[in-house]
């Protein structure tokens, strides 16, 4: 259950940062990305994935959340 920080990059995409792993990776896809549901399975450019609890609204970024390591992570 690492703490991950999700932030918006200058180009508009999202990156996920795991301090403990020195991982700073761009987000390829995010399961839920609507106004009333945000989160779920997050896939990174290197193929690994993390799961964060879906939130009821889009949070203001950057945000630090607890994440579960998903498949390939």
């Amino acid at each position, binding site marked *: 259950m690492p703490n991950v920080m999700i932030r918006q990059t200058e180009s508009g995409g999202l990156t996920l940062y795991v301090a403990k792993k020195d991982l700073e990776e761009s987000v390829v896809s995010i399961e839920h990305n609507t106004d009333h549901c945000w989160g779920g399975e997050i896939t990174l450019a290197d193929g690994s994935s993390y799961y964060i609890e879906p939130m009821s609204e889009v949070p203001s970024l950057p945000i*630090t959340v607890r994440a579960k390591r998903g498949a390939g992570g």
Partner: protein
Amino acid sequence: MSVMSRDEVESLIQEVLEVYPAKAQKDRAKHLTPNDHEVEQSKKCITSNKKSLPGVMTIRGCAYAGSKGVVWGPVKDMIHISHGPVGCGQYSRAGRRNYYIGTTGVNAFVTMNFTSDFQEKDIVFGGDKKLAKLIDEIETLFPLNKGVTIQSECPIGLIGDDIEAVAKKKTKEHGKTVVPVRCEGFRGVSQSLGHHIANDAVRDWVLSARDEDDSFEVTDYDVAIIGDYNIGGDAWSSRILLEEMGLRVVAQWSGDGTISEMELTPKVKLNLVHCYRSMNYISRHMEEKYKIPWIEYNFFGPTKTVESLRKIASHFDESIQQKCEEVIERYRPEWDAVIARYRPRLEGKRVMLYVGGLRPRHVIGAYEDLGMEVVGTGYEFGHNDDYDRTIKEMGDATLLYDDVTGYEFEEFVKKVKPDLIGSGIKEKYIFQKMGVPFRQMHSWDYSGPYHGFDGFAIFARDMDMTLNNPCWSKLQAPWKKEVAADEVVAASA
């Protein structure tokens, strides 16, 4: 020697690794690679931030070095106690040349060494009482200090002293910030974890001090310089450029910085991060908590400086952007003259770097401005994200080495034969004795500043006076020189 191909670099790495036992060979092979522009992520080609191999000569430092020596040490109006035995503080005292304005021993304390000088009895019975007494003594002797940090050395963690309790008690007693920093040297694999711990200590004990206080008058052009340690005056030569652009520099972290500047940083509009490695943690925190965006910049060499100035200006309105162009135009004749003078003397020379923090990638641009080529680079304590950023800066098939050992570095230099090496003091005399020009790039070989346009002039001069120094042809004793045959004949006549 001309440019090496990828195969040549790979075989060179193989050759150098051959002397190691099989297991060590396997381990070290992951840390050495030819650069590959195709690779997007560094972790596919190079491993970093791993424990050094026992038995090799590593050039790394410890967590205490990262916290006291790098992040906290330059904060000039605080007293940094090296809590533990006397050596750690004394042998690292004033070595990094973080310049500052102030009267040492009165209102600034950077070059002084404060230590609790642990003895056997402190290890056995604990050192908290001694620490409390020490802080009281500091208050009596140096009343103008603005705060105290407790920089733990290894024994503190080993014997389990409660420095946090002492810090809280003394904060209450004296009304000044006392920061306990758990940067025991054994933590982590290098000084890098010390940076992180120090950043976290700033976050937990300092940063939120003025959250409720709006008395500080802010402007739209407030910025903070993060991760510039003012080595040889670096932060000053950066700061003037930003100020000429019309920005207001509220804080310098941490070269020539103060605790009050640190407390005011959450009020700025933009954080400018120079040393990403040591200060990205706090920048990320400020972005999350205070919504302050941060950008990385690079003030080495005119090309990169201009690029960075424009990038910084693009975050502000047009008046700043216009002033930015004016500043660039004003300095252009200056740096053109520097390039005109030194480029012909340095053109085509090849450089190998091995330093820490930001320099392995940031100074590449400065060398390129002088027509020089960086043929090998590496970090003492870099992480994946550092190498991600380096791959783009370096030429294809150049050498990358992480946490290089003394032996590997020497062998690489023998084979690659660079014209100049930039590394630390521990490497300096080895390579100078091998007859290779060397600059100590940790503290600019007692020179500097190197940042900004003013710094570039000094950088160029230093590189020239090292490389073109006549001493390099005089290293061999005259009687050991091979004498041409006709001279021998002439001498015997």
